[in-house]
């Protein structure tokens, strides 16, 4: 176990808590910078997808993991961002401006959906956001003059003043910058009053309110930020896929996003990245495993959905803290060997339950 002796408040506030962290995250940063030269073209493409989903996941984590508001329609924000980016880039806008617009427009849509959502909680909020997801998907299909409808929409490469990011390496770095900045923004939020207010709302609304937290304002803020990040991710997604159609933003996509944050570990920023890695590598693992299964199972079309479903149920039942929780347990086991006890991470039952959902 590592014990940190704190001698001033800054130590408590800074993002990097100790030298060990600085070393490992530095190493991670360096390998990410070197990735285009170390990885094959295919692996780099997968890494880009991980970064894109991580951006979206950061948004959903802020909303679901830190503010306690579940959205089952998050693909809609992804869609709004993706189509905004596609339309603006195709019209010749420089990509940073288009990115900013995609994020902002999604955030505005997030506020629009967030305001009625303030009145509903838990499962009802889930249903409201689900319905919103359907509305957006249908809207994207019907608004043919802008979105191209079901025929789809081709997306040009991001460009700015004659400079086009058409190589995979350039696009990878764009994604990396967006992810790093989003992560820093989330980490900053979480160590500041705004982030604490979100956590307060998640854990007890009534008490958050009596501490002076304006519930409606902070919930709307969380919705807006979450949707904005999803929109940014969507914009990058549009460039990566290069062809958009409404069914990419349907309920299955929304559930994938939710699966990502739950499997990663609700309430942790690490969980977002672990979840994104899980979401991208899982189809590959399934594809590899297919050959070893009997044809009647291996070649059936619903295999992936079944595996995802089983994994989700297994995580909810056996590891509610997700992959990150599992990692924490493993690390503690090794650090404390041989003194680790089975119940160390078990949470005590709450003594009194009032009108909250968990």
């Amino acid at each position: 176990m590592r014990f940190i002796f704190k001698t001033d408040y800054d130590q408590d506030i800074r993002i990097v808590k100790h030298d060990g962290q600085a070393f490992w995250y530095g190493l991670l940063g360096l390998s990410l910078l070197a990735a285009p030269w170390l990885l094959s073209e295919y692996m780099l493409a997968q890494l880009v997808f991980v970064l894109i989903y991580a951006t979206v996941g950061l948004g959903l984590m802020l909303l679901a993991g830190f503010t306690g508001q579940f959205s089952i329609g998050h693909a809609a924000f992804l869609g709004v961002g993706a189509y905004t980016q596609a339309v603006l880039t195709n019209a010749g806008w420089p990509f940073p401006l288009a990115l900013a617009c995609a994020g902002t427009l999604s955030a505005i849509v997030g506020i629009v959906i967030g305001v009625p959502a303030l009145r509903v909680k838990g499962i009802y909020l889930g249903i409201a956001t689900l319905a919103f997801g359907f509305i957006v998907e249908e809207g994207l299909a019907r608004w043919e003059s802008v979105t191209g409808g079901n025929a789809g929409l081709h997306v040009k490469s991001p460009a700015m003043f004659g400079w086009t990011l058409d190589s995979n390496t350039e696009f990878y770095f764009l994604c990396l910058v967006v992810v790093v900045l989003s992560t820093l923004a989330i980490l900053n939020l979480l160590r500041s009053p705004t982030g604490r207010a979100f956590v307060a709302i998640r854990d007890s609304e009534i008490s958050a309110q009596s501490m002076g937290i304006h519930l409606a304002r902070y919930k709307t803020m969380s919705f807006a930020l979450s949707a904005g990040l999803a929109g940014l991710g969507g914009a990058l997604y549009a460039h990566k896929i290069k062809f958009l159609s409404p069914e990419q933003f349907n309920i299955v996509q929304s559930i994938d996003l939710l699966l990502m944050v739950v499997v990663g570990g609700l309430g942790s920023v690490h969980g977002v990245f672990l979840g994104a890695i899980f979401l991208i590598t899982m189809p590959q693992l399934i594809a590899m495993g297919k050959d070893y299964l009997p044809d009647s199972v291996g070649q059936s079309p619903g295999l992936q959905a079944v595996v995802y479903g089983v994994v989700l149920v297994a995580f909810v039942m056996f590891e509610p803290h997700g992959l990150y929780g599992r990692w924490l347990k493993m690390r503690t086991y090794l650090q404390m060997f041989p003194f680790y006890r089975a119940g160390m991470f078990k949470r005590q039952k709450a003594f009194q339950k009032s009108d909250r959902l968990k």
Partner: protein
Amino acid sequence: MSGPLLSASDLTVRFGGLVAVNKVSFDVQRGEVFTIIGPNGAGKTTVFNLISRIYQPTAGNIRYEGEDLVAQPPHAVAALGIARTFQNIELFEFASVLQNLLIGTHTHRRTSLWQDILFTGATRRAEIHARRKAEEVIDFLSLQRYRDMMVAGLPYGVRKVVELARALCAEPKLLLLDEPSSGLNVEETDDMAWWIQDIQRDLGITVLMVEHDMSLVSKVSDRVLAMNQGEVLALGTPEEVQSHAGVIEAYLGSTDDLSSLRRSAA
């Protein structure tokens, strides 16, 4: 400013046909410990929820420092200097004790969302200031050893103190304590009594509390208000209220009841 800190007049709340609080009036003077007692269902907690604006009174009004409190939205109450604890402990379970205390300082926040996202110098200074305040309270209530622990793993007695600490972090002028001793053992109740006295004397905070434990009530209270079925029974010093015939009747039943019981048993 002179006059009472908080004054309720003809406060009435109806939930459907049930009159939970009926024409209750009282004044809380600056610097005193004012206790509301009464049997279960007397409407004590309802009065608390009226002051912290969780309920809307059907009639009557509450004035705080001469201003109309009923006109304020619930989240604005803390900024006016009213902090509270809850009967069934409403802490932020999946956050550390320190984070809970820092949320207590929320009403003093001055930074905007953008400053927080960029974590500018202003946010950093505000964070340090908030932590200093939290440390003072941790010191005051001897919570040092629990500072970095998750609330979800703490024993009941400690949670009670953490909730009190969180309320103190808001630097209130009026502290509402809803049954501070419920669920505590004798020793912890004694500690609570000391702290309430310290809060009153050293920090100069006015305390309004709901409490059942009469030894605690008579130890710390300056004045006591007894309620039964939504109405005021008696108001006075702890001794006066405890010897008030109506109060005894509300708790133990009248001698008439007793004799009628005896008759029916015979």
